[in-house]
C-alpha cells in the first residue's frame, strides 16, 4: 500500500462527523474607502503620493531624484512600465531604467545587486488593511516587487475594495487563480529581535504608493 492509500484509508475509516454550516460573517464596509486605505497603508509604513494619470512619471522622477535612486527597474510590456520608458525617452529626468526583460537566471546579479528600486502596477487594493493586490505576469515578474530595496506601486483609486472577502467574491478569483497572487501591506519588516520593528529585512525597505486619483 502507498502512503497515500494508507493515509486516505485511515481518514475514510474514521467515524463520520457532520460539517457545520458556515455561520454568517459580515466583513466590514467603509463609507470612505480611500480614507481607510490611506490610514491603514500609512500605518503599514507605506508612503502614499497622490498623482494624476498624466503626470505621475514627472512626480516619480522628482521623488526618486530626491532620494538619490540611480537605477529603477521596470517591466516592459506593461502599461506602467511602458509609460515610464516613453517618459524617459521624452526627456523626463528619471533614473536609469533597467528593464526586467529576461528570465531571472540571466538577471540575478542585476536584481540582487544593481537596482535601487522597482516599479509595478497593481490589480487594486484593500481598504480594510491598506493592502495592495498584485498578480505578477509574464511581463511583470514576481521579484520586481520584492528584490529592489524600494518598491513603487501604482494604484488607481477606482480599484479600491472594502475587504479581501469582497474582492475575492466580486472578481470571482476562485474561477482562475494566477500562478502567484500577492497581497502586499507595507515594506518588508521583522520584529524577531526583541519585538523591535525593523524594515527591509529581506524585501524592500520602503514602499511608495502612487495613487492615481479618480477623474484627475
Amino acid at each position, binding site marked *: 500500500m*502507498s*502512503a*497515500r492509500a*494508507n*493515509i*486516505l484509508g*485511515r*481518514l*475514510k475509516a*474514521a*467515524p*463520520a*462527523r457532520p*460539517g*457545520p454550516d*458556515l*455561520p454568517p460573517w*459580515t*466583513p466590514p464596509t467603509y463609507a470612505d474607502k480611500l480614507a481607510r486605505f490611506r490610514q*491603514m497603508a500609512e500605518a503599514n509604513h507605506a508612503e502614499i503620493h497622490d498623482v494624476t494619470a498624466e503626470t505621475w512619471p514627472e512626480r516619480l522622477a522628482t521623488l526618486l531624484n530626491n532620494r538619490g535612486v540611480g537605477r529603477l527597474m521596470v517591466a516592459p510590456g506593461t502599461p506602467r512600465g511602458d509609460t515610464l520608458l516613453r517618459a524617459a525617452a521624452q526627456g523626463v529626468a528619471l533614473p536609469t531604467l533597467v528593464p526586467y526583460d*529576461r528570465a*531571472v537566471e540571466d538577471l*540575478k546579479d542585476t536584481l*540582487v545587486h544593481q537596482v535601487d528600486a522597482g516599479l509595478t502596477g497593481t490589480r487594486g487594493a484593500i481598504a480594510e*488593511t491598506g*493592502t495592495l493586490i498584485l498578480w*505578477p*505576469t*509574464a*511581463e511583470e*515578474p*514576481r*521579484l520586481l516587487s*520584492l528584490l529592489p530595496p524600494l518598491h513603487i506601486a501604482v494604484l488607481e483609486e477606482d480599484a479600491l475594495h472594502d*475587504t*479581501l*472577502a469582497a474582492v*475575492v*467574491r466580486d472578481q470571482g478569483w*476562485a474561477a482562475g*487563480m494566477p*500562478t*502567484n*497572487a*500577492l*497581497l*502586499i*501591506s*507595507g*515594506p*518588508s519588516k521583522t520584529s*524577531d*529581535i*526583541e*519585538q*523591535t520593528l*525593523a524594515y*527591509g529585512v*529581506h*524585501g524592500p525597505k520602503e514602499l511608495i504608493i502612487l495613487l492615481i486619483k479618480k477623474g484627475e
Partner: protein
Amino acid sequence: MLSEKGGADGGHPPEHAPRFAERAPDALNNPQLRRNFRRAMDGLMAKRAAQFPDPAYWAELRERGAAVKARALAKLPDLLERLEARLTTNGVQVHWAETTEEANAIVLGILQRAGARTVIKGKSMVSEEMHLNAHLERHGIEAVESDLGEYIIQLAGETPSHIVMPCIHKNKDEISDLFAEKIPGLERTGDVDELTAAARRVLRERFAQADAGISGVNFAVAETGTLVLIENEGNGRLSTTMPPLHIAVTGIEKVVELLDDIPPLLALLPRSATGQPITTYVNMISGPRKKGEMGKAGEKDGPTAVHLVLLDAGRSRVYQDVELADTLRCIRCAACMNHCPVYTRVGGHTYNAIYPGPIGKILTPQLQGLDAAGDQPHASTLCNACAEVCPVKIPIPDLLVRLRREAVRPTETPATHLPVVKDGGAERSWNEALVWAGWRLVYTRPLLYRMVTRALAWGGNWVPAGAPLMRDWTTARTKPRFKPRTLHDLARERGYPNRLELDEVPK
C-alpha cells in the same frame, strides 16, 4: 501518588527524558529568560487585544473561522483528494508521507534528482517536526534558514522556543554577541537595524545561490489548488520564488475547501498571532513558473518546479476521535501560548517539543504518544486563557482533561481495539486509582462523608507538613487549616433547613 518526581509509582522507566516539572526550574531560575518572555508576551497580548476591539465582531469572526476549519475536517479525505487533483492540474507535484522519515526521504529525493546542494528555507514548523535540516545535512545538502528568527536560532544551534517568534527567548545583547561571533567581518552592534541589515546581506547571497527553496504552508485551498503562505519579512516569498525548485511541506490538516474560506482565516491569523491586521505578505501560489506557449511569452521568474509534501505523522490517528480531532483545527497562531501563564514563565524549551504551550500540550501527546509526553497535559491550571483567545475555538482545556483521562484510563478505537491515543494508559498508577476510588466511596455516601469531614475537622491539622502532597503544597504555602466545625455543622446550627419542604429556623 501524584508526584511527578519519582517515576517508580508512575511506571516510568528511570531513563525517561526529564519531565516538564523537572525541566521547569531551569527556566524559572533564569531571570533574563523570564524577563524576555514576560515582556514579549505582555506586548503580544496587548497588541492582539487592540485588534479585536468589538467583542461581537470577534465572536462572529471566530465562529466563522472555527466552522470553516471544522467543515474542512469533516470532509478531510475528500478535500485532500481534490487538492491533489487540482494541484496536479496546476502543475504542482504532490507527495504523501505517513511519517516524518518518509517526508524527509521524499524531500531528499527531489533535491538529489535536481542536483541541489544548497537549500534556502522559509519558516516551517512541519520541517522542524521532520528535523529536516539535520537530515539534509547528513546527506550533504546545506539548508539555511532565512526567517530572521530561525536564522538566529540556527546560528546559535538551538531550537525555536515559540512557533511564530522562534528566538523570542533571546534578547538583543545575546543576538549581538552571536552575530559578532558568527558573521565574518561584523562588529558587535546593539542596533537592531544594523543587525537586521547584516542578516539581509548574508542571506541575500544565499537566496541568489540556493538551488531550491523549502517552505511550509498556512492554508491549502482544495478548490483552486492554491498554497497560501503568510509572512512579514519577504524571506518566504524569496524562498518560494527565487530558486528554480520549490518544495512545500505541510500537515494534512492545513487544507480548506474554498478560496472564500481564506478571508476569515486571514482576518483571524495575524491578528491573533502578532496583533497585526494583516502580514506584510500574503503569498498565494497556484503553480510553477508558466512556460511560454503559442507565441505568448512565459513568466520570467518563479520556480520551474513546485512540489507539495503532505505529511500525516500521527494526524490521521488524531482524526479518529471526533472530540480530539478538534486539535487539527489549529492554524498555528500561537495566541494560546502568548496568553498562557505557564508558557509565559517557562518559555518554549521547557516543553522539550516542537510545539510548545497549550496547543503543544494537546498536540505533542497525540503525535508522540502518552509515554513520551503524558505529563504535558498536567502542565496546566486549566485557566482557560487559551480557549478564550483561540481564533478557531479549540476547547484546549477540555482536550487537556481528555488526554489526562487517556493517560490513566485509555479508551479504544472500536475498529482497531487500539488505544485512541498512542500509549494510552502510560500514566496509569494503582496508587492514584486507589485514592480516587476511596474518594468516590466517601463523596457519594453522605453519612460517610460527614464522618470523614468531621474527623478532619477534629484532626486534619495534625497532618504533618512533610506528608505526601502536603510537602509539595507547603514549599510555597502554609498548610490549609481545617476548621473545628464544617459548613454542614454551621448550617444546621444557624437553622438552615436541609430540605425544601422543611421550615427554616433562623438563629
